[in-house]
């Protein structure tokens, strides 16, 4: 049996596809899983949630992030490309003056930082911000 050039290409490209596929698929699943863990499986919608972060972070060791969401009961921040993608969850109590939190987070690489809010009516909303990281900050 002779192996045609076409067949070699077909096998090679199939192999390439298999090699390349898992990475993006894995990342997408992980972000989805992280979101589902907070929302108990519900798909978050859009709402008054905002996330502010620098477009470019020189140093991934400490990136300032502010989240705000009027009407939120709690807000979670996720850095999906970090070794530990969950960053923090803030619950607002009766003496909270606003549903706002500013903090500094670690970022291993360029990614979309995700904020998820659980609203007082039980619904969930999501927002994200792209941050380009020059030097990663997770020391892995």
């Amino acid at each position, binding site marked *: 049996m002779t192996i045609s050039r076409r067949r070699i290409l077909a096998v090679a490209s199939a192999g390439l596809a298999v090699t390349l596929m898992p990475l993006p698929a894995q990342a997408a699943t992980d972000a989805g899983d992280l979101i589902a863990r907070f929302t108990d499986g519900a798909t978050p919608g859009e709402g008054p949630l905002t996330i502010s972060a620098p477009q470019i972070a020189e140093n991934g060791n400490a990136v300032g992030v502010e989240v705000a969401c009027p009407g939120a009961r709690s807000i979670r921040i996720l850095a999906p490309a970090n070794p530990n993608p969950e960053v*923090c969850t803030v619950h607002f109590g009766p003496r909270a*003056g*606003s549903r706002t939190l500013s903090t500094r987070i670690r970022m291993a690489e360029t990614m979309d930082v995700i904020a998820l809010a659980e609203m007082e009516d039980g619904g969930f909303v999501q927002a994200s911000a792209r941050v380009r990281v020059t030097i990663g900050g997770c020391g892995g």
Partner: protein
Amino acid sequence: MERIDARPRVRVPRSASPGEVVLIRTLANHPMENGERLDSDGERVARHIIHRFICTFNGDTVIEMEIEPSLAANPFIEFEAEVPESGTFHFAWHDDNGDVYEATADIEVA
């Protein structure tokens, strides 16, 4: 896990009017060892972080936070509180090693 000299610092206004919303800034010294870093021998350094932060005003919760290793070292946390009357803010940072670092701040509301 070693004891950390966290020296927590808080910034709270000294006075406000009833029902005013005030800005609160907090900072604690802590390496927030995320459990990913390798030491000079190539050994993984064990996780050692502040995993919880709580701020109350006269016993009522302002915010409560669950913190993971992806928060930056020397945790900086800024938020807002509503003050109906004079009283005391209480702040607590809970370390993985069981230590709790505390701070208080009084505010005059008139």
